[in-house]
Structure formats: structure tokens, C-alpha cells
């Protein structure tokens, strides 16, 4: 009767070693998710939105300086600090391991954003404006957020839903795991599809055969700000670099 209760746990692996800091993921995310254009004015106000951002740190002193990149998006924590603090349940954890933001329920207290250690939650200070030329480019599968509410990376849940529908139409219980391998093609979040170096891998961590599950057991794995015990669903893989410092970046 019911929609089959799919026992999945969506998860992403970010291989820092492969990231070149090219920002393709940022652009892909921007256009997939109707994220408002980050204008110079918004940057000056510190109100620009990028659901995924590539942080850049410098290591060493000139001229022996190295740039380190780390892409950061919503970590979809299993014990997310943002969830219990929302007074109206606008953000919560669903049974697929997603940290969900419900736009229509949000009243905009911004408490969740304060309580997010990764600073990946964004507030619509202004009504978003698109130039006329871009209005038809908006993704119809994604809500265009109005002012006064929070938003953040959703792991492209609209693509997840579509893949589930496609699977169901074919009579499958769940989307085939192959489908999440970008090289095979059917489905992955926009950033994963856009990454030219395959630094981002997405899939079902509960499926032992998935790529994500095997990468997640790498001995290079770590979580961002692990000491907070947020148990993120985004797993980072350390850089393989003998010269890499111990994290004392500028």
C-alpha cells in the first residue's frame, strides 16, 4: 500500500586529494537549485549564497606557498545541531539520512544558522532577483525561495525523487546503485555530476556494494569538526601529500 520504506542513507564522500578548487560544483549547484545570483553587492554585505563553497586556505610562507581547497556543503549530520533548535520544525531529519529544510514552515528565526558549526545555512535577507534573461532558466523542480527563510544544500533531493520515480516506474524497489556512479550516468547531485576530477562521490551508504560505502571505509576518512559529535553524512578523505601541514593554515 504505502510507498516502500526504502532503507537508504544518502551519503557523500569528498576526496580532498582530488579537489582542484575549480568551483565547477559551485556553479552547477547554483543553477540546479535556483540559488540567487551572488552579486558583488551581496558579497559586500556578506549575504551571498553558495550551497556548496570551496574554502581556500594558504599553507606555508611565500614563495613556498600552497593553496588547500576544501568543498563544504551541508553535512546532513545524523545528530544535527540545527534540528532541535528550530521552534517550528522547519528543519528535521528524515529517514533517508537527509537534513531537510522545509521552506514553507520556516519563520526565519535563524537559530539553526547560529547553531550550524559548518556555516552552510543561508538566510534570504532580500527577495531574490534574477535578470529577465535568466528567469526561464530556473529549475521548475526546485522551489524558488522567498525572503525571510533559511535554505541550504538538499543533496539535490529533487533528483533523488526523480530517480526513485524512475525506478518505481520500472518496477524496482529502489534506484539501482549503478545509477549513482557518475560514469554510468542516471543520477547524482548536480555538484557530483559537475566535478571533473571525480572528487565528489554520492550514494547509499547502507548499500555495501556502493562506491560511497567502500570509500567511506578508507583509512583517509574523517569528518569535518569531528569533535562536535554531529555525525555528518558527508565524509572527507585526507589529502595524500607528504608536505601537508598539521592544519595550521593562514
Amino acid at each position, binding site marked *: 500500500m504505502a510507498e516502500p520504506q526504502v532503507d537508504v542513507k544518502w551519503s557523500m564522500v569528498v576526496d580532498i586529494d582530488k579537489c582542484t578548487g575549480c568551483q565547477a560544483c559551485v556553479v552547477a549547484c547554483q543553477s540546479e537549485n535556483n540559488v540567487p545570483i551572488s552579486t558583488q553587492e551581496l558579497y559586500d554585505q556578506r549575504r551571498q549564497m553558495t550551497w556548496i563553497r570551496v574554502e581556500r586556505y594558504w599553507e606555508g610562507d611565500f614563495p613556498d606557498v600552497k593553496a588547500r581547497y576544501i568543498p563544504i556543503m551541508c553535512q546532513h549530520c545524523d545528530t544535527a545541531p540545527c534540528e532541535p533548535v528550530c521552534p517550528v520544525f522547519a528543519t528535521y531529519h528524515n529517514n533517508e539520512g537527509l537534513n531537510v529544510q522545509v521552506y514553507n514552515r520556516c519563520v526565519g528565526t535563524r537559530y539553526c544558522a547560529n547553531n550550524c558549526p559548518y556555516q552552510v545555512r543561508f538566510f534570504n535577507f532580500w527577495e531574490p532577483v534574477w535578470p529577465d534573461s535568466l528567469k526561464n532558466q530556473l529549475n521548475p523542480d526546485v522551489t524558488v525561495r522567498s525572503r525571510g527563510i533559511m535554505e541550504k544544500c538538499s543533496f539535490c533531493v529533487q533528483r533523488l525523487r526523480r530517480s526513485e520515480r524512475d525506478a518505481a516506474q520500472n518496477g524496482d524497489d529502489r534506484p539501482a546503485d549503478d545509477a549513482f556512479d557518475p560514469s554510468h550516468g542516471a543520477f547524482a547531485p548536480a555538484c557530483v555530476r559537475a566535478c571533473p576530477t571525480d572528487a565528489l562521490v554520492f550514494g547509499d551508504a547502507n548499500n555495501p556494494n556502493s562506491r560511497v560505502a567502500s570509500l567511506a571505509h578508507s583509512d583517509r576518512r574523517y569528518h569535518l569538526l569531528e569533535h*562536535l*559529535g554531529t555525525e555528518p553524512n558527508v565524509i572527507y578523505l585526507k589529502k595524500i601529500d607528504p608536505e601537508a601541514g598539521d592544519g595550521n593554515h593562514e
Partner: protein
Amino acid sequence: METTSSESNGHNGHHRHMPEIGEYTAQVANEEIRAWFGAPGSWHGKALFVAGALLVAGIVAFVIRASSDGFDERGPWAYYAAGFAFLLTTVGSAPLVSVALRMSKAHWRRGLSRLSELFAISSIFMLIVYIPLPFMLPVVDDRPSLWINWHGHAPHIYDSMLLVTTVLCGLAILLIGARPDFAALKHETKGIRRWYYSIIGGNWKGTKKEWQRLRAAQGVLGGLYFMMLIFTQLIVSSDYALALIPGWKDSIYPAFYSLTGLQGALAVTLIAMFWVRRTGLQRYISLDQFWGLAKLLLATSLLWFYFWWSGFFVFWYGRSVAEVGVLEYMIKGAYLAPFLGAIAFSFFVPCFFFLIWNPIRKSIRGPAIAATIVMLGIMFSRVREYVAAFSIPKGMVGSTHIEGILGTNTPDAIDILLLLGILGGSAFFYLVALRIFPAVNIWEQREFTLLRKVRPYFKRYAVVLGKPD
């Protein structure tokens, strides 16, 4: 308005009765207190014997522990440290009662101020107990600390200095407050008493200037004692308990510790009042004093829960790895039993079974029983914090969080003997002090008789209390 017009027709024609307020003259007070002081009764000798026996047992236990385990490891000394911390929050803080009540000008303090100040003598014993502890404290190089690293020994030096200063300050308050009494008594005694009465009493004549100086000294020393004690508790608790448990960054803990210090001071004063009152001096250590302290004990017990909850709540809601580790170690794990004991005996039982009911508060026995229960609760608290801290293996101190649940540390016979010795020792010192100083401040009682008057008030009599500022 017709509020009081009907009552204003004076005090004639109606039956009057004198209120039972224990009116007494300065003469009576002087004689009674001196008589008790001169001969407190045979109970004193017996009590002194029991306390002395416990002290000796404790010393024996100390020697056994020292010879078998040495001072290199903290673990074996965990209960000893808990005993010291217990002393610091009970007898070590007790003079605070007198200081605080004098600051707030509570007229009923006069019956109990000396009894609370006498605990300064017991604090000397606390200092003796403290002696081995600095040697067990790790240097600050590899652990969190409030101290700027100073050859790694900042906490050892400052902890010791603060403790000594606090105890000296408490003794100074006791001695200065005793001067007028000793000056008055020195002419009536002989031998060793006369000798030290003369030294302490000095050439006190009771001039206006001397009284002004006495009050000024009491004010300054009181303020100093208050600050020194709170600061000592802050430093000792954070160095000896907080800093040793990985991940336990709990900023309310020092304040919580000081609060239990206040609670313990009230409790231990109440217990002393109860036992002294059983052997006399009922006129001065009366219902007023018990009632007053019981209210404060209720307030501190309620605050106990508030402070504990404030600390617990933030950890529980925060759920960071370190916080979960500390909670699992100290609440869910090995220290669950002491924790439950602490919450029951420091807060739940004394509050809801005793102190919240005014008839019980306004009695002699009720507050005394509640105080005894509170003492038990404080002991459980100290065991929970200090034994937990001292049980952390050496290598783990300074790591960011507790990994795995550590083994329990149940007390063995030596530990229990050590604790009993610490209790007995402080009681022994107090009992000795009772023979050196009059148990009730004679001059304060005389002052009180001047400031308290009974007057007709409309149709009745009322007590009028003078409040000079």
C-alpha cells in the same frame, strides 16, 4: 480609609501578656556563657576521645597507604582527596556563615557567629590534610588549566598559597572577634588560659576607637575572607577535579562547588549548634538561629539543583563528543551511585521532606537532621568529582575527551578509614577549640540586649529591634 482607625485607641483595658521572646539581661548572658565554657560537662571528654580515636585510625591508614602505594600514582589517594575537598566545602567554609550574616546585619547571627568562626580551628586540620596533595597534581604542560604556564608549577604554588591565606584569614576573624571576650575574661582566670587570653585580648580597653577598629577589621577581613574562600574554591576545584577529567570544560562547576561550600558551611554550623545546644546555652542558640539558617539551607539546596541542572543541561543538549564522554563517565557510568546519592541528599530529601515545610524549618531538630543529610550529599558529590578525577590514568589527562568508560574505583577499608580519620580529625580540632574560646560571643550578646526592647504596641507587646547603621 478605615484601615487602622479602630485599632488606634491605645492599650488600655485589654488583657495583655508579655511575649515569650527570651528576654535576658547582659548579666545573665555573661554568667551563663562563662559557666558553660568553664565546665561543658562530661560529654566533651567522651566526644574528644571518639574523635581522637578516629583521627589515630586515620593516621594509621595514611601511613599504610603511603608505604604501600607511595605518592606517585593519584589513584590510591582518590578518596583522600575527596575527603580533603569535603573538608574545604564544610568546615573550611563554615566561618562564611558568620561573615555573611554580619555583612547583611542579621540580628540573629549573634547566637551562632562564634560557633561558625570556631571552624577556623578545624581548617588548620584541613591544611594538614592538604599537605600531600600538591605532589600528586600533574604539571600544566599537557592539560587544560586556568594558569599561564609557569615552569608547569603555577597551580601547585597558587593553590597552596590561597589555601593558607584563607585559613589564616578565618583564624584572624576568630581571634579579632574574641578579643573583647578575652580581655574581659583574662582577669578571672589563671595559668595557661590567662597567658593566651592576655596575648589575644591584649590591652583591649573597650574605648570607642577600639570598637570602631574592631568593626572595621571585621568588615575588611570578612570581605577578604569571602573573596579568598570563593577564589580558593574556584582554583582548587578546577585544578584538582575539572582539569583532570578529559573534556570536562564546565564553567559552572567552580561556582557550583562554592555553592555546596556555602551549603556545607550552613549544614556544619547547624550541626554544631544542635550538639552545643543539647548541653546548654539554649537561650542564645535558639529557634531564631535554627529558623534563620534553615531558610538559607533551603535556598542553597534549591540552588544546588538549579546549578547542577544548568551544567547538565548544556552538556546534554550540546552532545559534543567530549560532553557525551563526561556524562557517560560521571552520570551513567561508574559514578552513577554517588551521583544519585548527591542529588538525593543534597537536594531532594532535605528540600522536599524537611526544609520546604515551615513547621520543620521552625524547629530545632528538623534543620539539624536536614543538615546531616546535606553533609552526606556533599560527601557523595565530592566522591563523585574527586574520585572520578583522580581515577583518570596519567596518560589520559589532557586528552580532548574520555575514550571508553574507565574502571570503577570502589573504596577499600583503608579508604574508609582515611575518610573517617579526616572527619574525626576535624571534629577533634573543633572540640578542642570549644575549650579555648567561649562558644557564644559574650560581647555580641551584651550588645544585643541593648538593641532589643519589648514595647507595648497597640493592644499587644512587640519586639523592637534597633538597627544602627
